[in-house]
């Protein structure tokens, strides 16, 4: 049963070169209203900054928005998270991601790729469930 008191903590960000942030802003605002604690960054974050933020803020999940091929460096982010001691943080990607690249991202350890047409509630439900799993693995006795 989902714990009604459980409040996921997530980081919504954009890495790489592109700055189209309509998607990341809408998703961040919706998650916030759906009971999620959201750490939001503007676009253009370095991978190192994202890892640092994820560790310092102790987030359960990172949502990366990519609309102009920046998803191609998400595998670098996954590697950097593992090396930075944050390998247990779940990562989801949303935006324009071709099918062939979706497979590449899932193989690299991304939990899920959301596409245009996925509903905000669907994203929120996945974030809740996945964050709960991450938190449970960190505090197995709780």
């Amino acid at each position, binding site marked *: 049963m989902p714990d009604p008191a459980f409040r996921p903590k997530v980081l919504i960000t954009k890495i*790489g*070169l*592109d*700055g*189209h*942030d*309509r998607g990341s*802003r*809408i998703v*961040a*605002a*919706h998650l*916030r209203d759906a009971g999620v604690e959201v750490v*939001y960054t*503007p*676009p*253009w974050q370095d991978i190192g900054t994202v890892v640092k933020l994820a560790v310092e803020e102790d987030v359960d999940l990172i949502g990366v928005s990519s609309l*102009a*091929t*920046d998803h*191609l*460096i998400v595998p*670098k982010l996954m590697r950097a998270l593992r090396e930075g001691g944050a390998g247990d943080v779940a990562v989801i990607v949303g935006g*324009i991601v*071709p*099918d*062939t*690249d979706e497979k590449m991202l899932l193989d690299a350890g991304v939990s899920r790729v959301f*596409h*245009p*047409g996925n*509903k*905000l*509630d669907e994203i929120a439900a996945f974030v809740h469930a996945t964050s709960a799993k991450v938190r449970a693995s960190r505090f197995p006795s709780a």
Partner: protein
Amino acid sequence: MNKPLPHAIPASTGEANVRWSAEYAAQIGDDREVRNRSGIPIKPLYTPLDVDPARFDAEIGFPGQPPYTRGIYPTMHRGRTWTQRQLIGLGTPATYNARLRDILDQGGNAVSLIPCNSVFRGYDMDEVDAELLGTCGVVCNSADHMAACLDGVDLARTSCAMNDPSPFTLLAFMLDTAKRNGVPWNAITGTSNQSDYLSHFVANHMFFRLALAGARRVLTDHIAWCGEHLPRWNPLSVVGQHMQQAGATPAEALGFTFASAIQYADDCVAAGMSPDAILPRFTFFFDISISFFEEIAKFRAGRRIWARLTRERYGARDPRSWRFKFHGQTSGVDLTRQQPLNNIARVTAQAIAGIFGGLQSLHTDAYDEALSCPTQFGARIAVATQNILREEAHLTDVIDPLGGSYYVERLTDEMEAKVLAVMADVEAEGGMYRAVESGYVQRRIGDSARTFQERIDSGEQTVVGVNRYAIDEDASARPALAKPDPALMDAHRADFARFKAQRSQDDVARALAALVRATGETGPTRTNLFGAIVAAAAAGCTHGEICGTLRRELGFGHPLVAV
């Protein structure tokens, strides 16, 4: 022109209208309220009662005459159809040149160059993740690269839109190409697209940005320099497209765009330029959504507002200052990943709205844009769509064919009022510069984006294949991302490293030092910054070096984001 309107209200209209209203109410059942994307309530029927024939001369008039509601030229598309300007950009300069020539052969008649995101962001190819090079635009970092991009293009006869945010290095590189080809600068035509720095803070944080004050200075210098050296070039394109794609309603997008245009014109006038010297070279760039009549009314209202604004606010006397010239791009946000071929139908409807709206230049999106950068197959269909609309569909036979429609005229009036209200809101915030600095515009666009998404999620707004009529699809039928050939990109990087090692380092150092000096000068006799950039490009400086220098001297423009 004082002849009575052919459809002046007949005496029986009132009675017939009452009868129709009763019959409509009896038969429609539960009539839901309909509003367009800008929030204007839409009635089921418009009649002569919705238009005031006494306002015909002042508000509607004739094409080529103020307030230009029916078009900015007397002949409009019957005389000369729009410019077919497809955005192109992928891979290396040689790849770009091949795609460009293909599109020009297929019916395109103007150049639009989209550089790689690394270029947009102000970096050379050796400063960014190699995975991202050339995936969304051409990697063009130097005058040599531009010469390769435009190889075989007659710059004296082909209008070139450079998607070239401040500091306009692509134009500087192009001027060098023109010089090499013996084309005089005063013959060059085209537009500095993406020169609207305010829109880059408001909407898609995609471009190289100086801090607001520096960006303001570079743009004002750019407009002044082009006025002196490039009489046929449009140094400013004020962009509503970014804002509408980011979620602004059509009325908000147009209102914010005019608010930006006012800011730029005010800045130019403050710098000593005369309104009639600059306003004829202001152009606009808009999104065309699938909200068909709303878009047509938006463009008609836009012409009317600009014609009045330029005369009333700036005292412009040259009719060229009054004409609202715009490029339209079909809306990518309306396209779907699901059942992607359906996007051809969407693009067609959007393009017709733009054509009926009286645009001067059109880009039609490729159907596969919601999946990846357009494939050649997709790009060709987008060009063919324009060819069909222009030459098969008889859309251009009549000027402003929807003019006089009770609905379209009424909606034009209502869109105009809505847009003027948005402009007044910005004025109350202290003008567009201040409204962007404070985050007001960003917040408003973010709210509208979310409202629209919620309408889709709730099913109130149908999106075929997404929230209705979904079918199981074979994902393998979708095109893969068109990625640049890694071998070509590696060779391009090696060439660039060689070029940087072999050029005259003294010339480069001197040109960059002159640029630094120019940023430090103040007062009316200071060096024009864009002039220094043109000189730096000719001296062999790269895009990243010029942008890096300005970033250090004038400060970097961090996103001003509001959630």
